[in-house]
């Protein structure tokens, strides 16, 4: 199977700090790929390189078989590389519906902004409503996104990203700060989206239990280096991973 998203030898440093050091991995279509590691391991930096916010000093990212070097973040999003953030980056002043509609434009197709197109607008609305319904957000459609509680804001962000029908969705700690029920709900939504819409998921997560239960592939990082890459089953037994998380035994 040809990988849908591929990172090859990515290196990124900020002045003296090496955030990424020769990181390579491949994600196959339909994967639930998890990136884990201690704080400061470079996980978010890696996502930022993948979505084009940071330019790596070395290495390249391939998406759908094409090299993404020099492709702007907005163009990557249009090609089907979705993204959510660790700290909520919603459009706080917009309604939930408008947030999702903005994402839905990517899936339904945009039109010239100054020539409103009622039919396109209509298609966008219908698809946005479908996504809202899917994520159980319909009753909140006219609420201001910024006025919702944290867990729901996270869900709106996922809805916005999913509305774009991304081929690969990069999620930065989607479960952080959620209650157990909210985590379960979110996991179910994500798995459903993977199954029904064929979205490949790449997520950074701290919740080891969730990762090991859900994922099909795991990348463990520490200090910008790859410690482990492979099946989730092998993570616990890997000595280097244990060392990074728990420290060397005396």
């Amino acid at each position, binding site marked *: 199977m040809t990988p849908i998203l591929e990172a090859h030898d990515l290196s990124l440093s900020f002045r003296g700090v090496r955030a990424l050091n020769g990181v390579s991995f491949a994600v196959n279509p339909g994967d639930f790929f998890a990136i884990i590691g201690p704080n400061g391991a470079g996980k978010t930096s890696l996502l930022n390189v993948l979505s084009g916010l940071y330019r790596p000093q070395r290495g390249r990212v391939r998406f759908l078989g094409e090299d993404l070097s020099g492709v702007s973040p907005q163009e990557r*999003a249009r090609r089907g590389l979705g993204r959510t953030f660790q700290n909520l980056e919603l459009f706080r002043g917009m309604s939930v519906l408008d947030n999702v509609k903005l994402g839905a434009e990517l899936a339904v197709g945009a039109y010239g902004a100054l020539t409103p197109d009622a039919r396109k607008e209509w298609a966008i609305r219908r698809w946005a409503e479908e996504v809202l319904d899917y994520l159980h957000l319909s009753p909140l459609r006219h609420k201001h996104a910024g006025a919702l509680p944290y867990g729901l804001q996270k869900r709106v962000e996922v809805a916005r990203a999913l509305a774009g029908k991304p081929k690969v969705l990069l999620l930065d700690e989607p479960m952080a700060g959620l209650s157990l029920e909210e985590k379960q709900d979110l996991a179910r939504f994500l798995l459903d989206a993977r199954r029904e819409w064929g979205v490949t998921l790449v997520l950074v997560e701290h919740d080891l239990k969730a990762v090991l239960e859900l994922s099909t592939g795991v990348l463990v990082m520490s200090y910008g280096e790859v410690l482990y890459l492979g099946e989730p089953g092998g993570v616990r037994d890997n000595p280097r991973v244990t060392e990074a998380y728990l420290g060397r035994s005396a």
Partner: protein
Amino acid sequence: MLFRLSQTLTDRYSRTFARTVRATYRQDEAYASTPLGRLWLWTALVLLVMLPLLLPPYPMYVVVLIAIASIGALGLHLLVGGAGQISLGHAAFLGIGAYTASHLAGPLAAVGILLGGVLAGLIGIVLGLPSLRIKGTYLAIATLALQFLADYVFKRWEAVTGGIRGRTLPPAEFLGISMPNADALWYLVLLFAIPLFFYAKRLLSSRAGRLWYAVRDNDLSARLSGVDLTRAKLTAFAISAFYAGIAGGLLANLYKSITPDNFVLTFSIQYLAMVIVGGAGTVLGAVLGATFIVLIPEVLNAIVGAFGPQFAPSFAAWRNVVFGALILLFLILEPLGLVGLWGRIRDYFRTWPLPY
């Protein structure tokens, strides 16, 4: 039985008067979704057309001023409240529109006004360029540069602008009808204002609005949602300047004589005040803000006048103080502007007679 009756009644009530019950998405997106709302919209339009018959000349002149200011303010609303950018150069665009219109006046007035808008829109794109790099206060200063540059050009480019003496215009004509006074010009103003208002409302509720709000709220995640920041910002500047250019052209046809003094910095700031007092980002806010800013000095003038001429000099100084104080009070007591006030009144009646 009684319960069923009351249920039917309240349901009918909310379908007719309030916007709480909307059965389809299409109803949800319509301008006026209730019969009462539609009635209100049509009444307002008819009233607007009849206005010169109802008002004496001077109030009518003030109303025309308000309508023109609303168009200009609406443009700034799209920029400030929509895309979250700021411009202190709005008067420059009014000026560009006005001087263009002054060259295509008389029978060509409508064309001149439209062309003035287009020209202002093009220059608006240039003004938008700094916004790609800088934000907030810094952007305000950058747009200030255009304001001063425009002022200089208006004064010095005598061949086109007539220098400090300015230019005079013959009365506007449209389809052979001469419009020598405010009463007649009103219809030309309406001809531009009504489509522009509906267009702005449509823009804000469709893709353009979403792009602009996205840029305003969070440019990082706007990019990662596929929004082209450059285009979103530049279209906002262009549209905003286009509206200002149209307003400027209409203003030139109302004054029938324009000088550089009509388009100074104070004027730009007045327009910003309209946006802030009206409540940024909504079409209704533009009208309410323009009404407030144009009307209050007139009302204060009338009050001063009522006391008799001997008080006029001492009151004249206080007039500006009262004006400033009113704006300040507004910002403190109702940060959402007049629109916020209106919204609360409407919400109250939407669920009336129940408090929730």
